[in-house]
Every structure is written in structure tokens, then in C-alpha cells.
């Protein structure tokens, strides 16, 4: 920044140290430790390593051979696409709409946020009852409209969709709130000037709101991608252990499975390394696609 106030750099330390101490101790150090762990043999959570793997990169060879990890990667890519198009897309449309209405702004802002307020655990349980084969909400609804056969929403052909819809739905409100805050920060004067110049509502959205929202959208894009890589609670409660027949693994659930169910802690560490690498790469891609601009 050009300002003279910030030429004296001594206070920087006091601003940065508290946050970065926390991050280092509880995030970066454990993560590095985790990389080391991925080369060792660990059979129990919290237990110390038995020694190095022989050869030390065993887990990574395993990773290439493992069929489930490929399923998980493909599913995760689907999830990323769904979150960018679904969550972010819907959120942008809703935010622009809410910004353009006079009455009820507050109401929509409040209720769109509901799914975020709710624990993913609770949502998973809720959707389990909604999608329940033996007469959950949807099957009862289908019956009312004359369907005679129960539909199994968790069979091979429907499972991915059944998993993606709640995950997508859950986080729309999250991006919506960030975007609407961004829209609120756009000065009314700009809109007023445009209106005087004869701009239509659509033109104001297209040439003022969207360009000025660009950086906020970019931030949301990065959050959406990293969020998709981390998504865990909801899929795990709805589709534990990759059911049916290992078709719904996500990188997150597959990693959890190895850490806590099959006691292959070192292998799960290797998967988490993979998740982080993927996260960095995709976030870079998102950043170049939506490249931050200054207006």
C-alpha cells in the first residue's frame, strides 16, 4: 500500500504472530507430521509409528493401484463441478435477484441461511429419512402422485445424485450470504447514475453488479473447490463406507475410512497428502480462470 502509515513495519509482527502461531501449531505442523506419517507404518490412532515402510513410498504405489481411490477422485471431480455450477451458480442468481427486489430481502436472506445453521450430522439424518426406501418423504410423495413402485434412491444408479443434491443444497446459502454482502458494498450512486443514463435493470446487473462482484466470486470459487475436496460429514452419514458397492467414495470419506475403520493410518495420511495437492492445483486453476481484477 502506498500510504505512509504503513512504512513503519515494526507493528506487523504483533498483528501476524498470534494467528500464525495458531496456524503453525495446529495446522501446518500436524500436516507436515502427516506427510512424514504417510511413509511410516502406523496401525492405531494416536499410537506412535512402528517404523518406516519398506520401501518408504509403499503407500503411494498402493495409491496408484487402488481402484477405490480412482472412484473417489472421479466422484470428487463430479462434486467439484456440481459445487461450482450448482452452489455458486444458484447462489449468484439468487443473490442478484434478492438484490433487485424491494420487499422481502430480509426474509430471503434469513431463510436461505437455514441449511448452514444446521449441523451436517443433523442434515444427514434428515435426508436419510427424506430418501428412505421404505417410505421416506420422497417415496410417500411419489405415491401420492400415483407411483406404485418404491424407488431406491440409494441404489447404484441414483446414489451419486442422492448424495450431491443435499451437499449442493446445503451450501448455496453460504455463498449467497457472502455474495449479498459484496453486493451491499456496491455504492448506490453507481446504480443511480446508470439509471439516469437510461440503463435497464438487466444492464445494471450485467455492467455494474457482476463486474464489481468479480473478486468476491473469485473468493467463493476457491472456497467452493476446497470445500468440495473436504466434504465429509453429510456423505459419510448418508453413504457410509462407500456403499453401495464402493461407488460413492469421495476423497474425504475414503480417507476417513482408512484412518478410523480399517486402522491403516499411514495410508490415510497418504490420501490426505493427495487431497491437499489436489486442492492447491484446483485452487490455482480457479484463480486463473476467475483471475482477480482491479476496477
Amino acid at each position, binding site marked *: 500500500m502506498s500510504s505512509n502509515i504503513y512504512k513503519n513495519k515494526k507493528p506487523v509482527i504483533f498483528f501476524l504472530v498470534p494467528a500464525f502461531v495458531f496456524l503453525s501449531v495446529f495446522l501446518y505442523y500436524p500436516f507436515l507430521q502427516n506427510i512424514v506419517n504417510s511413509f511410516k507404518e502406523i496401525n492405531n490412532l494416536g499410537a506412535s509409528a512402528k517404523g518406516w515402510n519398506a520401501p518408504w513410498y509403499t503407500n503411494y504405489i498402493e495409491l496408484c493401484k487402488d481402484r477405490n481411490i480412482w472412484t473417489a477422485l472421479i466422484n470428487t471431480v463430479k462434486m467439484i463441478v456440481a459445487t461450482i455450477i450448482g452452489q455458486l451458480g444458484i447462489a449468484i442468481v439468487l443473490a442478484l435477484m434478492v438484490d433487485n427486489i424491494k420487499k422481502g430481502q430480509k426474509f430471503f436472506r434469513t431463510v436461505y441461511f437455514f441449511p448452514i445453521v444446521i449441523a451436517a450430522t*443433523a442434515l444427514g439424518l434428515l435426508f436419510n429419512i427424506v430418501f428412505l426406501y421404505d417410505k421416506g418423504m420422497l417415496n410417500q410423495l411419489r405415491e401420492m402422485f400415483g407411483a406404485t413402485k418404491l424407488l431406491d434412491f440409494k441404489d447404484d444408479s441414483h446414489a451419486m445424485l442422492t448424495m450431491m443434491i443435499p451437499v449442493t443444497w446445503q451450501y448455496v446459502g453460504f455463498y449467497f450470504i457472502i455474495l449479498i454482502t459484496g453486493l451491499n458494498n456496491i455504492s448506490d450512486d453507481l446504480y443511480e447514475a446508470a439509471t439516469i443514463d437510461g440503463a435497464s435493470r438487466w444492464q445494471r446487473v450485467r455492467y455494474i453488479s457482476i463486474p464489481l462482484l468479480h473478486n468476491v466470486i473469485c473468493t467463493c470459487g476457491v472456497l467452493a473447490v476446497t470445500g468440495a475436496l473436504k466434504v465429509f460429514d453429510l456423505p459419510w452419514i448418508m453413504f457410509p463406507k462407500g456403499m453401495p458397492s464402493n461407488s460413492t467414495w469421495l476423497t474425504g470419506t475414503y480417507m476417513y475410512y482408512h484412518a478410523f475403520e480399517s486402522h491403516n493410518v499411514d495410508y490415510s495420511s497418504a490420501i490426505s497428502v493427495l487431497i491437499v495437492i489436489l486442492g492447491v492445483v484446483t485452487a490455482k486453476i480457479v484463480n486463473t480462470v476467475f483471475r482477480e481484477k482491479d476496477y
Partner: protein
Amino acid sequence: MKAEIYKTNQKHHKISLGMVGIYVVLSAWALTTIYPLFWILMNSFKNKKIIRSDSFSLPLGELFTLDNYKTAFDRVNILGAYRNSIVISLSVAAAVILLSGLAAYALVRYDFKIKGLLNSLVVAGMMFPPFATIIPVIRMMNVIGLANTNQIPKSLLAVILPQIAGNLSFAIVVLRGYIAGLPVELEEAAYMEGCNVFQLFFKVVMPLCKPSFATVGIFSFLWSYNDLFTQSFFLKTKPEYSVTVLLSLLTSQEGTNYGLMASSVSLIVFPLLIVYLFLQKYIVKGLTAGAVKG
């Protein structure tokens, strides 16, 4: 100002069909966020058999029962669990607001050598899923003596510390964006009047960014409250349970009792929802309070 715009606008479109369309779309989405909650609340007052045959009718007359709640309350100490959850989440939110604000401010306003590195570290921090760090964190907590002590304050602290770290990256990224949008002139003016940088932060930047600090605080609170993962490792005895841990245990023991499931979900969801509805007022105030826009 806005009123004027709308007036001129209305002259252009007397019957605004587009407006109707907008309201239809918005209401449709609102229905998807409200109805499932209403549905689960409704069914929590019904017998588990009726949930599977007739879930859409209101629990009136004969259908109405409090049995599901009785079962939930009989088994567990739900008030203690609420207290634990709230202590954890409030501490996390407060710490995240302060720490992330300070860091974001410095990262935006100062130029220094390792700024680029720190910025990438922050973004990288968002990629670390909690399950990628939990294993070393558990061992660390054992060493410090915070885990497995059966003492409530220590166990709560063992959850709070990693949760603060887990929420910091996100908070810094969001705040960085908003602080960067503030005109530096305001800080210069305050500086001229004799404020030091810390006063600038607390008296100029923080009040101006109130809405984004509120956003960050609320998200940290919610994520901490809803995070089953970290909590399930450190809250192991009954008096330490938080709401999410308690109810996930309850439902895992009673997997097919949909009535109990409905009442448990309602017990996790609705207190928080009510608190949220009260806070909402302040959030909206915060959102519109920004002194200088654009």
C-alpha cells in the same frame, strides 16, 4: 436515493412480469430451505410408525405424541450438552474474529518480504481437511495433558484450540477481501489525528468492517457447533458431551427409530435456529452500517 431509482424504474415497467418471475424463483428456493425443517419438526411429534405411512399430515389430535422427546430427554443430559457446545463455539468465534482480523489487516496494508508466502500459507490452510491434521493433534493434546483427563474445562479447551486454527484461514481470506476494499484515506485521516496503528485497527477498520467480522464470527460459531469430527475425539465422557456428539451417539444406537431421530434432529437444530433468528437482526444492521461504500 434508492427510492428515487425505483420510482423512475416503475415508470419504465408498469407491470413488471420479470419481478413476478423473480419472486417465484426466490420463493421456490425458500420452500426447499424451510419445508424439510418444518417436516422434521412435524414428524418429531408423531409415532415412528406413522412417520413412514403418513408423514405429511400435521401432528394433531390422536397423531400428536411427545414420546420421542421423552425418550431423548430420558437418556441424556441435554442441558449440559448445550452448555458445553455454547462454551466451545463462543470461545472459538471470539478468538477467530480477533486473530484473523489482526492478521488480515497486516496482510492487506503492509508490504513485507514474506507476504506472498504467508498469503499462500493461508490459502493452503483452507485445503487441510481436519482429518489430515487430527492424528498428530491428538498426540499433541496427550502430551500437553489436555486430552483424556475427564476434566470438562480441559477437554473443552482441547476442542477449542484446533477449531480456532481450523477456522482462521477461511476468516483471513474473507476479511482480507473486505479490508482491501476500504479506502485507505480514512485510515490516513485518523492517523493524522494521532491514532497509532492499533487504534486504527480497533477504531477505524473493525467498525467499518463490522458486517464482515459478523459474517466471520457467525460462520466460526456455526462450524464449531456443528463440527462432529474434532469434538468426537476429545469429548469422551458423558458430562463432556456436546450437543452434536450426544445426538450422533444416540441415533447410532437407535438407527431405525425414526421418531427418535426426528426429535434428536429437532433438538440439535431448533435452538440454534432460534438464536440465529435473534442474531439475524444485528447481522442485517451490520450489513447496512458500512459508512463508506464502494
